[in-house]
């Protein structure tokens, strides 16, 4: 079974048909998806800015990481669920889309960098070159996830 066969099978199914014919579901799912993206991105931004020397400067890095990184982990399941439903609705638009592939790769890397930053912050509040590189990588990777996500609409 090729990806195209899978797309056709998925879009013919009851779940996909329901989302396709019910007005408002797709923008509603996208709205929840974007709101979670906003919370996740702002949480990552707070930790990254703290490492880069602005944002919540008066707080120890560990406190900032403990306050904001759990929100990232809480948003990801909601993003995966709404993202999966959007794929079910229009599989052919997404599954073979190179921008979607880039988004998934950037997402995996962003999660890895965030886990590393969280582990470092729990170990000590010291900020070294490694943390600074991690903060830049985090900002770049999450921004790539967002932009590649939007480009699914423009690439095929």
């Amino acid at each position, binding site marked *: 079974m090729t990806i195209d066969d899978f797309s056709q099978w998925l879009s013919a199914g009851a779940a996909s048909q329901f989302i396709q014919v019910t007005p408002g579901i797709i923008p509603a799912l996208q*709205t929840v998806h*974007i709101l979670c*993206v*906003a919370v*996740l991105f702002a949480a990552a*931004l707070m930790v990254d800015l703290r490492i880069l020397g602005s944002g919540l400067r008066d707080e120890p890095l560990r406190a900032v990481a403990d*306050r904001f990184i759990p929100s990232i982990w809480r948003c990801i399941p909601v993003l995966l669920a709404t993202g999966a439903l959007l794929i079910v609705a229009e599989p052919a638009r997404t599954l073979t889309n190179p921008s979607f592939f880039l988004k998934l790769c950037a997402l995996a890397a962003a999660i890895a960098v965030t886990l590393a930053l969280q582990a470092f912050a729990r170990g000590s509040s010291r900020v070294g070159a490694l943390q600074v590189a991690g903060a830049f990588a985090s900002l770049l990777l999450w921004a790539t996830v*967002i932009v590649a996500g939007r480009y699914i609409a423009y690439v095929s």
Partner: protein
Amino acid sequence: MIHAFFSWLQATSIAQAVSTRWFPVVESVHVLAIATVVGTIFIVDLRLVGLSSRSLRLTTLSSQVLPWTWRAFALALATGTLLLAANAEGYYGNAPLRIKAVLLLLAGLNMAWFQFVGRRDIARWDAGRPPVAARRSGWLSLILWTGIVACGRWAGFV
């Protein structure tokens, strides 16, 4: 008069350039800016209503988070204007965008109320639980910004 302005806007060379070539790029920057605006506002609102960051003083949190909100808002406003200009005639009658404009205005008024009235006695509750009026302002902000995001997304579907 607004319609005439929108016609003029769409005819400008910059609007034409966005329409024919730069729309996806400008839209991507708009989404990044909005994620920053809404996410950082939610951080402060959630503290205001008492759901998170309760161990931080509200003034500490807002003075260090909100400057980033304003920077991102300037970017969102600039990119949003370019996106609007690209198809101004088409967007003129777009109901979700009209609702979005009203919600933005209400969010601004809510913020102004908090700035000039709600936080006048902030010294008394900065480290603790905000009074009911301030908490309501936080809930209102959460609802308004959710509506703003929803209308922005909905605008692309009509």
